[in-house]
């Protein structure tokens, strides 16, 4: 019992048995493994940035398809959005890895997580984009057409710049969500921040320390993303959000 530190006089630090919280934090083992944790954090950032970029491209296409009068495109887009938005991310990742595996399609953990995140990002962003598109009056489209612009030119120069400005903040939220959800990569053995943390803690059993540091790292990553996106928005939109 020698090393035990009790706080019998502190009524707030008592457990069921009436004892103090008898846990000493050892941080040095975490700092010794910092390079590996940073490596995991890099993978987390990498997969979420890529999932976001691909998700945006697909979502713009799906949003246009959804507003299109052509039935097949509209059905595909609606089905995509419904499945992506109404099933858990955990399920998507599991299906991408083990579900496709049962069909003989073997994705690496990285690709499985990436495709699941792209799938969900695209689903959520489609609805955001559709809202953005619909907030732009139809008359602008007609007016641009009457000036002799092609449909693509109308979207490129008139609609998309306004739309992206309006949905910029919801899009940033989705980005943060994507970073945090990439932690589910641990389920399929992806060596992102959570997976790396889990592996490192099993060597020393300093579980609390490792996961607390990982939580701080997630916080820093998302804060950095939020700050840089707000700086970027100032540059892009000159404060007109």
């Amino acid at each position, binding site marked *: 019992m020698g090393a035990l530190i009790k706080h019998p006089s502190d*009524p707030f630090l008592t457990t069921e*048995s009436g004892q103090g919280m008898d846990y000493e934090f050892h941080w040095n083992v975490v700092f010794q493994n910092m390079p590996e944790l940073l490596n995991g954090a890099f993978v987390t950032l990498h997969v979420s940035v890529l999932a976001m970029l691909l998700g945006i491209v697909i979502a713009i296409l799906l949003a246009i398809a959804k507003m299109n009068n052509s039935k097949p495109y509209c059905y595909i887009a609606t089905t995509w959005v419904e499945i992506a938005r109404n099933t858990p991310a955990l399920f998507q990742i599991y299906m991408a890895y083990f579900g496709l595996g*049962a069909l003989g399609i*073997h994705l690496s953990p990285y690709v499985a997580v990436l495709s699941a995140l792209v799938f969900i990002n695209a689903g959520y962003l489609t609805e955001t984009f559709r809202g953005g598109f619909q907030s732009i009056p139809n008359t602008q489209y007609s007016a641009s057409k009457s000036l002799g612009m092609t449909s693509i030119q109308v979207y490129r120069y008139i609609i998309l710049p306004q739309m992206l400005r309006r949905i910029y903040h919801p899009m940033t939220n989705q980005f943060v969500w994507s970073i945090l959800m990439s932690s589910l990569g641990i389920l*399929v*053995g992806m060596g992102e921040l959570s*997976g790396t943390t889990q592996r490192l803690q099993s060597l*020393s059993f300093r*579980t609390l320390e490792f996961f607390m540091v990982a939580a701080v790292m997630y916080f820093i990553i998302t804060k950095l993303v939020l700050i840089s996106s707000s700086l970027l928005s100032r540059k892009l939109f000159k404060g007109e959000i």
Partner: protein
Amino acid sequence: MMRKLATSLVLSCIAFTSVNATADQLDTVIQRGTLNCGVVLDFPPMGYFDGNNQPAGFDVGYCNDLAAALGVESNILNLTWGDRIPSLISGKTDVVIGSTSDTLERAKSVGFTYPYFVFKFQVIAPKNKNIQSFDDLKNLKVGAALGTTYETEYLAYAEKKGWGTDNYTAFKSENDAYLGLYQGKVDAVISTNTNIATKLQSAEFKDFAAGPFVPNYDDVVGLIAKRSEGAWISYLNLFLVHQIRDGNMNTHYNKHFGSDAPADLIQSLRDNK
């Protein structure tokens, strides 16, 4: 006056709790009347769910024996490998009987008892892979459950041999590792000899075979409890001695492995190696 009265009331309350504070884990379990015992239930035959979806296995048998010795109810909590330590620290479990390898690194964080079992780490792979020695894994895709000692041992071996980690896949649980092997995501899985023997009895794994052992490694495992609970760990140690002395160990071994416990296993446990 009132303030003084209130202060003395608070102080006496604190004094009362500090009397209570001498109760250790052993007292707590006895007073509670329930032993919260953590077991990893996807690791047959040590821990699994039986046909009626009830916890069963060697480790579950040990939990029940321990509860009986203490004269309390046994409450089995299902854990993953990674949950073992958090469950102890947060007070959800009193003891984890979960095949925990007793490395010196881990013993800095958690209290280990004497060993209660010794495993061998082994390779399981499809028969057509024809794996003869551990070095045959060099260019194969290998998987294991995340946070296990066999993961660590494989990675250390791969590093020593310069194989790199590109061919390695970690799975969240033991079951997922076998699912990955079955689906062909990996060519081989490292697990314990006991678990592999159990899996090979099932129809799904009829085209698979047990391969070589991880060289020069005995996986010696103990029960774990909070490091600070010296008296509780002493009790657990005596319990383990009694499990062998009273023949309970052999009974459980027989039930789950289909034969008497090997003499060298019993001897190494008696010698606390």
